[in-house]
């Protein structure tokens, strides 16, 4: 049997070897273990062996009671019942998270406020593939290449999870798990029509089947809307009415295939492509919109291999590509010089990411489990507008993480995790976390954790360079060929720093019908990166924007989550967060308070029931209190009520459903930008599943 007193040689080698040897080291070490002799009989360990559960927190298969972080699981039923049409809307159900429409087709999702035009402190993954865009340091929720129907469930880590998922998981992480080809059979077709100004149209086709030894799922969709339509600057109806041209359309196709050549090996290949166009407000010109084309594709291959009953290996390789294009030519006039045309659509270019990740999970004995991960990533940006001087930039990053779960005794569980990262924008950075879970009884557990985490400046933040080029023409005198700095990065950014403390309580009813989760947290963020003005000796206003470590703030608060189901087909999902923020953003000699940049209260209540005659219904209530959005407006509190009614019809080998969704039944409200009214939106969806 295993001797507990000595460290396993594999783990020693992981920490001590230099990184280039690391991937090879893990692979060689694990392959050699494959030859371990198996027990000739079925044993008690086989009978009590673990089976797949939640994985996002530590990469270990853990129950919620063992997890070192607070988590919210959003399953398929909850997504359907929410009536969400856009994926981002689903995160309104997560306590402490805020979802906001910057405009009709641009969404932001943040944890504990500080919502920006391009929020970037959450890691978002689809089946473990990071979909964070280096080009804009954010996520494009409208161009992920998947639809709501492709999703099986979503794991949301509330709180920093850099220790497992890397720098972007600074304040939380979202892993969207898509449907395996084996989970559906036959075909599905669905049509969506929306009323009101948006006039949403959606078409979705899906087919699942098997082709020889391959199980395949194909999904294609088209989604379009006419945008917000009309509004008033600052939301003030006394201002002249203006057109808000934020319409959008997107076509997407994705394929997922599973191949299991042996009992211990499975391969998962995912391919996706999307192409569309969105009316996007220009950052440089208020209230003006330009059509921005988006085209993207991805490839993701995952190999999972069981080395033995205690050790699993997972290797994931993926490539993401996204390109934004579209010009916005504007006449520029300076003094008495002739007017010239300049392209003011800066948010465009190409973003590419290659990533290879090797993960090894190991149960050493009933008391000790480990998850090791080593990864290497190549990011490349190409943008004439955002990287004026260089035009393109690339960066190699590597990372190494480990999580150790140690059972001290029947009640106490310790989770120790750390991530070591290196990239071109930072040197080496170590982010550790220590968590203790205490099992009060079979239903209740307590959790306490302390986290130190660093977020490296994104490639764009560290290198952004936006300039206006005056024509080289004698008519412009001294301005001929001159460059006007709009945003110039001095390349002295330091990583953002987080120190977080939390206490959690979890109760799960023995029959699984109810679950309650409470979390008290303190998050201290230092050196928060934001845009600021600095003095610059240029030709116009002597100031230029740059990214700086300009903000410090402390968030304190409480999150509550309650799931309740009854035997009579009624259920409730409740999520509430109270957050108190103190902090400031310093710009030169002045400073701006960040106290109101997080809503004090966020509430989501979603209740559903199944009625006779195959009718189901749900009612959602969402409340967000007053918020000063960073780079946006100060929006008042709002209450929103959504309702969904669905009737299904069953036949021998097919099932049809008619679904009516009304979002925001009562008065209009605003999110992020006061001129974007969110009125009542009604959607009708018809779907047909058949063999």
């Amino acid at each position, binding site marked *: *049997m*295993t*001797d507990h007193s000595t460290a396993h040689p594999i783990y020693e080698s992981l920490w001590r070897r230099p990184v280039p040897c690391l991937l090879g080291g893990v692979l060689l070490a694990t392959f050699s273990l494959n030859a371990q002799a*198996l*027990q*000739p*009989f*079925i*044993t*008690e*360990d*086989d*009978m*009590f*062996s*673990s*089976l*797949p*559960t939640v994985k996002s927190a530590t990469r270990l298969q853990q*129950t919620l009671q063992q997890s070192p972080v607070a988590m919210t699981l959003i399953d398929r039923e909850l997504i359907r019942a929410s009536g969400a049409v856009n994926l981002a809307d689903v995160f309104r159900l997560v306590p402490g998270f805020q979802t906001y429409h910057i405009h009709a087709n641009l969404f932001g999702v943040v944890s504990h406020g500080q919502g920006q035009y391009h929020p970037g402190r959450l890691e978002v993954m689809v089946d473990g593939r990071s979909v964070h865009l280096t080009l804009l340091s954010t996520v494009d929720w409208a161009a992920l290449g998947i639809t709501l129907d492709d999703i099986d469930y979503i794991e949301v880590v509330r709180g920093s999870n850099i220790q497992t998922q890397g720098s972007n998981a600074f304040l939380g992480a979202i892993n969207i798990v898509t449907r*395996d080809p*084996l*989970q*559906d*059979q036959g075909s599905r077709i669905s049509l969506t029509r929306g009323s009101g100004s948006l006039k949403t149209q959606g078409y979705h086709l899906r087919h699942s089947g*098997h082709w020889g*030894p391959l*199980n395949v799922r194909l999904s294609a969709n088209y989604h379009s809307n006419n945008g917000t339509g009309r509004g008033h600057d600052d939301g003030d109806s006394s201002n002249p009415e203006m057109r808000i041209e934020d319409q959008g359309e997107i076509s997407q196709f994705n394929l997922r295939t*599973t191949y*299991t*050549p*042996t*009992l*211990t090996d499975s391969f998962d290949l995912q391919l996706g492509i999307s192409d569309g166009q969105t009316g996007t407000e220009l950052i440089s010109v208020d209230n003006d919109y330009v059509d921005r084309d988006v085209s993207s594709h991805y490839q993701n291959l995952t190999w999972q291999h*069981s080395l*033995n*009953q*205690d050790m699993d290996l997972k290797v994931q390789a993926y490539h993401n590509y996204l390109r934004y294009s579209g010009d916005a030519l504007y006449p520029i006039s300076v003094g008495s010089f002739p007017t010239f045309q300049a392209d003011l659509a800066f948010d465009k270019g190409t973003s590419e990411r290659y990533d290879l990740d090797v993960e090894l999970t190991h149960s050493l*004995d*009933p008391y000790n489990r480990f998850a090791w991960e080593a990864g290497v990533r190549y990011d490349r940006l190409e943008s004439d507008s955002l990287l004026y001087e260089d035009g393109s930039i690339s960066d190699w990053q590597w990372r190494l993480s480990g999580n150790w779960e140690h*059972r001290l005794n*029947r009640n106490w569980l310790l989770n120790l995790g750390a991530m070591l990262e290196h990239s071109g924008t930072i040197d080496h950075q170590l982010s550790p976390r220590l968590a203790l879970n205490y099992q009060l009884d079979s239903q209740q557990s307590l959790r306490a954790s302390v986290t130190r985490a660093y977020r490296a400046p994104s490639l764009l933040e560290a290198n952004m360079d936006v300039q206006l080029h005056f024509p080289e023409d004698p008519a412009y005198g001294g301005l001929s060929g001159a460059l006007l700095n709009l945003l110039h990065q001095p390349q002295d950014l330091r990583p953002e720093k987080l120190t977080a403390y939390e206490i959690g309580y979890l109760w799960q009813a023995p*029959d*699984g*019908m109810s679950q309650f989760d409470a979390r008290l947290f303190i998050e201290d963020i230092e050196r928060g990166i934001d845009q600021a003005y600095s003095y610059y000796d240029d030709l116009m206003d002597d100031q230029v924007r740059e990214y700086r470590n300009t903000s410090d703030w402390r968030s304190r608060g409480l999150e509550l989550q309650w799931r309740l*189901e009854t*035997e009579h*087909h009624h259920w409730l999902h409740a999520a509430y967060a109270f957050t108190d923020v103190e902090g400031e953003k310093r710009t030169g000699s002045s400073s701006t308070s960040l106290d109101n940049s997080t809503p004090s209260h966020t509430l989501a209540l979603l209740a559903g029931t199944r009625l006779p005659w195959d009718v189901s219904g749900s009612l959602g209530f969402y409340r967000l209190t007053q918020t000063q959005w960073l780079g946006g407006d100060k929006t008042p509190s709002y209450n929103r009520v959504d309702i969904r009614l669905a009737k299904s019809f069953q036949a021998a080998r097919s099932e049809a459903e008619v679904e009516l969704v009304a979002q925001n039944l009562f008065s209009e409200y605003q999110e992020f930008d006061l001129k974007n009214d969110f009125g009542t939106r009604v959607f009708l969806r018809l779907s047909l599943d058949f063999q």
Partner: protein
Amino acid sequence: MTGCWALLLTLAGPGSGLLPGYAQAESRVNSPHPPPNRVLLLGSHPAPIYQRMTERLQQQLQQTEEDQTYWHFEHRWLNQTEPSADLLKQYDLLITLGTEAARWSVTQTRSLPVLHTLITRQAFQGLIPPSPHQPSAQPRQATASGTSRSAIFLDQPYERQLHFAQLIFPDARRLGTLMGPKSRIDLPHLQQLSLSRKLTLNSATLDTQDNPIQALQPVISNSDMFLAIPDQAVFNRNTARWILMMTYRHGIPLIAYSQRYVEAGALAAIFSSPESIGRDTADWLRQWQRRRLAGSVELLPARYPQRFEIEINRATARSLQLQLPDIERLRRQLQPLGQELQP
């Protein structure tokens, strides 16, 4: 770890003569009294399942003063100190916890009676070949080798699993199952039992080099219900994901063998927890004690656990639109009072 953990239910160690408690009990009952039963509990290492089992055993045998007087337990973990031959001579009975300790006892103990616990029927029969006069090792006939070894198995008899599956879903006519490298030997027996319960068994066998999805596809698409059979952990873990997905997709109930399986999405499971094995072991010891008092040296035959747990996933039941009977009723139906409590 053992030092603070070891159980010492009597007030002195073995060989220390009459105990104060024993002396009091003797004067009270006023009858000739046998010496205490000296029992060694032996596990490979202090794993939680062994600790849970022995703690429950301790609770059971501390209920009465008489019990406390009769039973004297000690613990040893093989990864710390292996008991010497001299030490073993001081005990009346060895109780092994788990397969590793059972394997050790096969070579290290000669005359000491042994009760194997937390062991599967298959491991017991593999480690201890049947005695010449009991050649048959049919799964349903839990046999002991001679008189010196007995066992309380950890796994459930197939009859109980099938009965349970039929109580959960009485409409089932076609039962699907997947047998692994170690469990496939039981296939003829399972087929025979299914037939007697008017169930058609659709089964596939799977080796580690086989494609699990291709093996499962025809089985699940031709079954009304699926029974997961435990095999080696690597088999269990690598088939569970596909079995869960495919049975869910086809809308057929999945009956499993562990709480973990139910937590992962199986409809129901029947299994014996370490606590149940602890209580069964206490029963076994009381019966063994009565036999000894009656002058018999033969151990009780090896047997399946009499106590078991039932776990149901209500969310899965709702999604399958099944109304399940409550657990107590299921338990009563599975184990009519007294039927299985006799050795």
